[in-house]
């Protein structure tokens, strides 16, 4: 039937995600610079960085798993993007749904963790330990959000969630239906994206950027690509769950950029949290909000 069409969609979705992700990285760095009253990087800086990293003459590898780890990290995101419906492109949204997506997103993290492990650098392992702990911290409220949304829309299919919100107008948007859960999601968004103030796992001065300590050249480049996907995914998921998704790119893009911009703008104002403080914070306020939100939603 529309097999060819689907194939094109599947190809297009990761590419779009990457391009938009690049722009988001730029935006993030610009926001950071502006907050610090700097000029910030030029427009094409993310591309420069990636090209430079891929074109390094020395690509230091610590073994096969180090390489496979990076492949898993990038490949996993490429695959995950096809589960994420965007205007005009539903991809495989009906084959998996929100729960599948949430677990698919752990594949890149796992790949990266394995790759870092192979490097035999304790700084990397410490970073992974902290990153996994942080994941434990934010995933618990995140799962409340996923559950709440699935409950409200009566489905875990993201494409259906979008169509429900689109058909019934703004009043049916997630943010109106379940404002507390939206707030929860917003609170944990910087942690999901691994950004300030929850980036203890990179802690450059302390554990030499943690997981990235042995990453050079294209390995680092792969992680830069992954970061683009990461920001994009976070933005799109939030938009899909709470902001009605989008039928047109023209309305969709501002939403996802806004979603990413909000935590970024706030985040740079805070100092880093320690690991146990991340846990304590995440398990206190977002969790509380999430539970109340759920109670409200489920009556």
């Amino acid at each position: 039937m529309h097999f060819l069409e689907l194939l094109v969609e599947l190809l297009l979705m990761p590419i779009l995600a990457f391009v938009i992700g690049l722009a988001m990285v730029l935006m993030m760095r610009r926001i950071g610079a502006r907050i610090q009253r700097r000029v910030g990087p030029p427009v094409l800086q993310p591309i420069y960085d990636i090209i430079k990293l891929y074109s390094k003459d020395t690509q230091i590898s610590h073994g096969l798993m180090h390489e496979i780890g990076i492949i898993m990290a990038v490949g996993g995101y490429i695959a995950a993007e096809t589960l994420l419906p965007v205007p005009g492109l539903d991809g495989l949204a009906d084959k998996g749904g929100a729960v599948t997506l949430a677990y698919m997103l752990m594949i890149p993290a796992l790949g990266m963790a394995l790759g870092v492990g192979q490097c035999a650098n304790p700084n990397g392992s410490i970073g992974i330990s902290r990153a996994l702990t942080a994941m434990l911290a934010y995933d618990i409220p995140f799962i409340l959000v996923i559950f709440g949304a699935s409950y409200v829309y009566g489905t875990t299919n993201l494409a259906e969630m979008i169509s429900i919100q689109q058909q019934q107008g703004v009043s049916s948007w997630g943010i109106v239906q379940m404002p507390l859960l939206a707030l929860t999601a917003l609170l944990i968004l910087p942690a999901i994206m691994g950004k300030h103030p929850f980036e203890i796992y990179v802690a450059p001065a302390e554990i030499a950027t943690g997981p990235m300590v042995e990453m050079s050249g294209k390995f680092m480049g792969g992680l830069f690509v992954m970061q683009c996907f990461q920001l994009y995914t976070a933005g799109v998921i939030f938009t899909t769950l709470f902001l009605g998704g989008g039928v047109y790119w023209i309305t969709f893009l501002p939403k996802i950029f806004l979603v990413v911009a909000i935590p970024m703008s706030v985040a740079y104002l805070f100092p880093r949290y320690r690991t146990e403080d991340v846990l304590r914070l995440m398990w206190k306020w977002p969790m509380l909000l999430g539970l109340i939100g759920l109670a409200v939603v489920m009556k």
Partner: protein
Amino acid sequence: MNELDKIPVRQEISVAQGSVKRSNPLANVFDELVRFCQSRSMFMLHYCTGCGAIELPPAMTSRFDMERLGIQPMVTPRQADILLITGYVSVKTLKRIILTYEQMPAPKYVIGICSCTVNGGMYWQSYATAKVLKEYLPVDIYIAGCMPRPEAVISGLRDLMGDIKSGSASNWKRYFQNYDHYLGNQQKLFDEDWQTPTDIIAEAEHYGLITDQTLGEHTALLQKHQQPLEALEFSLGEKREKIRGENQ
């Protein structure tokens, strides 16, 4: 103290290699693009050995903002393109600097900041200080001064940027090509069993940068003392004899 011109540097090789033109015009464009990106995205490892480091924060923060030039600080040699050596280098520190340099992925550049890296500066008489950085590592740019202001630092970085863009900043290759010379100087300073856990000769082979200056008496001495450094290979069966030696 060695004279600068006594260093047997074969300038013409590196220059010729740096600006080699490929016959395919597209490949040329590609090379240009890569060099441009490399020049516009420089990650630096500031090895803050001395007082010069104090000038870097202003260069990075709101006043001068290096990031607008695509220059970012990085904390591990694996991610860095530039090694900034910001001040005097004691003998003990130099060992670390050399290791760090060797762990950086090519193309890599060294910038010596402050007079101390040029000729020892105010430590010129110190017994514990390596005076001329250039004897041990191929330095791309010196930014002299005690200490140089942020403007000078940025200016130096821009010079390097230009060199990279034009393809003439290829001093890193000299380290491989003349490894015996650099190693000799290092051995003279440290001891004859001096070694780092990095395998420079294998890397030189990897990039085809072995010249007749790469290997010599000093590398022979090195190989006498060196622990074997082959990467760990997969093993399914019995053929373990080669790697077993690693333990001894």
